[in-house]
C-alpha cells in the first residue's frame, strides 16, 4: 500500500518536472527552436507590411523556423519601434525597421521612449528612393526645366508628396538646400494621393517613392525627371540620377529603406544565425523572382554596413530637422 503511494508520488513528481527538464534541454539546442516573430510598425496590407510578409515567407527554409508578422501600427511607426526597443533580447523578437522614419520620429518629437542605440542592425532588404515626377503632358520635359521654373518663381511651384514630416519631405528640403531653390511642398496622405493630384493637375510635380510611381510611369501617365539616389532605379533605368540631371550631388537620404533589426542585447551567436538567414534569402532565386515581379527595389547590406549607414544618415538628417518642424 505504502509502496503504491510512494510510487504514485514519484510518478507525479516525475510528471511535473519532466516538462521543465525538457525546457532545459530545449534551450541547449540550436537557435531558433521555435517560431520567431517580427514586429512591423505599420498596418496590415500597406507597402511595408506586404514586403515584410513576402520576405517572411521566403526566409523560412533558411532560418529553419517560421517568421510570424506582428503588426504594431500607429503614430508613424513610433508604437512599433518602441515595442521593438523594449522587447526581450532573446532572439525570438525581431523587427522590420524603416529608415529614415525610425530616427526622424525620434528627432522630430518630444518624449520618444527609445534611442537609436536600442537597436542592432541585421540586414537591409530594400531601398526605395524618392523620385521627382510630372504629368506626362507637362511642359517641363527635363529636370533643368523644372529647376528653371522653380527659380523663376521662388516658393510658388507646388510639389506634392507624402507628409507631413515624411522622408519625402526631407528629400525635398535637402534638395532645396543643395540646389538653392525654394518650392512649395504640399503634404498629401501618401504617395498615391500625391500622384493622383499630379495626374489631376493640382500640383506641378510630385515626389513619391519610386516604387509607387513605377506603374504610372510605365503606363505613360507620369514622366520621371530625376531619381534622388546615387545609382539609377532598377525598374526605370532611363531615369537619370539627380547628379546626372543637375550636376549637383544631392544626398539621397530621403530614400526609404526597410531592413531587419533586433533589440540591443541579442547574443552574437543568434545574431549570426539571423544575419546568415537573411543573407541567404537575398540570393534565393525564388525570392528574387517574386520580388522582381512585385517591383520590390532590393538592396542588400549586411549588419555592419547597415549599422554604419544608419549612423551616417542619422547625422546627415539631424541638420535638416529644424527645417521640417
Amino acid at each position, binding site marked *: 500500500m505504502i509502496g503504491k503511494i510512494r510510487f504514485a508520488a514519484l510518478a507525479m513528481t516525475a510528471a511535473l518536472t519532466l516538462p521543465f527538464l525538457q525546457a532545459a534541454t530545449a534551450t541547449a539546442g540550436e537557435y531558433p527552436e521555435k517560431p520567431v516573430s517580427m514586429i512591423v510598425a505599420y498596418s496590415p496590407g500597406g507597402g511595408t*507590411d506586404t514586403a515584410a510578409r513576402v520576405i517572411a515567407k521566403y526566409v523560412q527554409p533558411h532560418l529553419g523556423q517560421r517568421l510570424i508578422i506582428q503588426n504594431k501600427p*500607429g503614430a508613424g511607426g*513610433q508604437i512599433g519601434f518602441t515595442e521593438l526597443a523594449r522587447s526581450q533580447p532573446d532572439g525570438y523578437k525581431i523587427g522590420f525597421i524603416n529608415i529614415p522614419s525610425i530616427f526622424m520620429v525620434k528627432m522630430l*518629437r518630444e518624449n520618444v521612449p527609445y534611442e537609436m542605440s536600442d537597436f542592432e542592425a541585421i540586414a537591409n532588404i530594400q531601398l526605395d528612393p524618392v523620385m521627382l515626377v510630372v504629368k506626362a503632358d507637362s511642359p517641363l520635359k527635363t529636370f533643368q526645366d523644372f529647376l528653371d521654373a522653380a527659380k523663376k518663381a521662388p516658393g510658388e511651384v507646388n510639389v506634392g508628396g507624402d507628409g507631413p514630416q515624411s522622408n519625402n519631405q526631407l528629400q525635398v528640403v535637402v534638395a532645396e538646400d543643395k540646389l538653392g531653390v525654394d518650392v512649395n511642398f504640399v503634404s498629401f496622405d501618401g504617395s498615391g494621393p500625391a500622384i493622383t493630384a499630379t495626374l*489631376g493637375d493640382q*500640383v506641378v510635380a510630385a515626389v513619391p517613392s519610386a516604387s509607387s510611381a513605377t506603374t504610372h510611369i510605365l503606363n505613360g501617365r507620369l514622366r520621371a525627371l530625376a531619381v534622388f539616389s546615387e545609382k539609377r532605379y532598377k525598374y526605370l533605368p532611363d531615369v537619370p540620377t539627380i547628379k546626372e540631371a543637375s550636376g549637383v550631388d544631392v544626398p539621397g537620404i530621403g530614400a526609404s529603406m526597410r531592413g531587419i533589426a533586433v533589440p540591443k542585447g541579442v547574443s552574437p551567436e543568434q545574431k549570426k544565425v539571423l544575419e546568415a538567414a537573411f543573407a541567404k534569402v537575398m540570393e534565393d532565386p525564388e525570392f528574387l523572382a517574386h520580388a522582381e515581379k512585385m517591383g520590390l527595389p532590393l538592396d542588400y547590406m549586411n549588419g555592419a554596413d547597415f549599422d554604419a549607414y544608419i549612423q551616417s544618415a542619422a547625422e546627415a538628417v539631424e541638420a535638416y530637422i529644424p527645417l521640417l518642424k
Partner: protein
Amino acid sequence: MFENILIGLSSLSDPIMLAAIAAGVFGGVLIGILPGLTSTMGVALLIPVTFSMPPQVGLAMLGGIYLASTYSGAISAVLLNIPGTPAAVATLLDGHPMSRRGQSTRALALATFGSSIGGLLSVVALLFIAPPLAEFSLRFGSPEYFLLAVFGITVIASLSAGAMEKGIIAGALGLLLSTIGNHPLTGEMRFTMDLPSLYDGIPLVVSLIGLYSVPEVISMISKRKQSNKPVFNADKTNPMAFMPEMFKQKVNVLRSSLIGIIVGIIPGVGCSVGGFLAYDAAKRSSKKPEEFGNGSPEGVVASETSNNAVTGGTLIPLLTLGVPGNPVTAVLLGGIMIHGLRPGPDLFTLNADITYGFILSLFVANLLFVPVGLFVAKYCVRVIQIPRSILAPSILALAAIGSYSIRGSLDDVVIMLFVGAIGFLLQFFSVPRAPLVLGLVLGTLAEGELARSLALVHGDLGAFAAQLVTRPISAVILLLCCYALYQGIVQHRKNSKMLDE
C-alpha cells in the same frame, strides 16, 4: 469587349474560382457581422493566403470578402443596434427600429436585396464605363473634396429626426473629436495628451464600437427588472416574401445605387458616406419623411443599396488608374501588385483573363451573399431572443476584444470605453449619435482638404474663394450645399411652426 467578357467567363467556370468566391463571401459575412472586424482587416489578413493562388482566384476571394463584409455589417446594425462596419451606420437608424417592431426579417431581407442590387449595378458600371468614369475621378482636387465634406455635413439635418439643435451638437462634437491627433499638413500634435495611440487621431472603428455597444449594454442592464420577453418576430419568416417590396422602391434603389457609384469613384470618400448621402436623398424625396428614424423601410434600402454600390465604384479608379478609393481598395492594390499585376490599361488588355475573371467574379459574389447572408441572418435573428443577462456581458466582451484586436493595443479599449461614455450621455439626453459619426468621418477630410487647398494657393483666401466658384465641379457642389442648407432651414421652420400650433 465581349471577347474579353467571354475570356472572363471561361476563367470563372473553373470550380476552384467558384470555391474561392464562396469562401470569400462566407468569411466576409462573418467579418462584417463582428463589430471589431472590418472589411479592410479581413482583406489585409487574407492577402498572404492568396500568395500561392493563381491571381484571379486570389482576387476573387478578396473581392468576395470586400463585398460580403460591406453588406453584412447591416445584420448586427438591424438586430443589435451596433453597426458591424462603419458602412452600416445609416442602416441602423431605421433597421433597428424595424427590428424592435418585430420586423427583423423584413429589415434584413430588404438590406440584403438592396445590397445585392446596388452591388450588381456598380459592377455593371465597372464593366462597361470604367475608363471615362476614372478620368472623372481625377478632376476632384482639394477644393472639391473640401466642399464634398461640407455637403456631407449638411446631411446632419436628415439624421437629427426632428431635433435639429441636438443633431448639430452631436455633429459639432464629432468634428471636435476628429481634430485629435496630428495636423494633416504640419504634423503638429493636438489634444493627444502625449499618448502615442492618439497621434493618428481617434480610431474610427474603435469609436464606433464604443459609441453604439456601450449604451446598448447599459440600457439592457437597466431594463433587467422588466420582463425578458423577446421581441416577437411578427412578420412572415420567409425573407423571399419581401422581394416584391423591392420592386415598389425601384426609384429609391436606382437613385441610391447611382449615389453609391459616384461616391465610390471619388477616391478617399468611402462606403459610410455613400450610405449617409443616399439616406439623406431618400428622406428628402420620400412621401413619408416622418417615418425616417422610426423604422422606415425606405431608409434601410437607401443606405444598404448605396453602401454596396460604392464597392464597384471604388474599383473603377483602382483598376484603371491604380488609385485606391478607400482603405479596403488600398489594401486590395497591394494584393494585386503582389501578383506582379500593374493597374492601368495593361490590366484590361495583357491580363484580360485575370481582370475580367475578377470583375465577373464580383457578379457572382454579389449574388452569392444573398443566400449566405440570409442563411446566417436566420440564425442571428435568434440573438435578440437571448436573455439580456447573457447578451449584455457578451456584447461588452466582444466590444473589448474587437477594439483591442485592431491595433493590439489596450489604449484602444480605454478609448472605446471613453467614447462609449459619450455615447451613453448622448443617448440619455436623446441626442442622435449618427451626426457624431458623420462629423468624425468627414471632419478629418474637411480639415485636411481645406488646409491643402490653402497651401496650394499659398494661403491666399481670395484665390481659394475664387477657386470654389470657378472650378466647375466645386461650383456644382457649392450649389448643392446651399440648396441643402436652405431646404433644411425651411423644413426646420415648418416643423417648429407645427409644434407652436
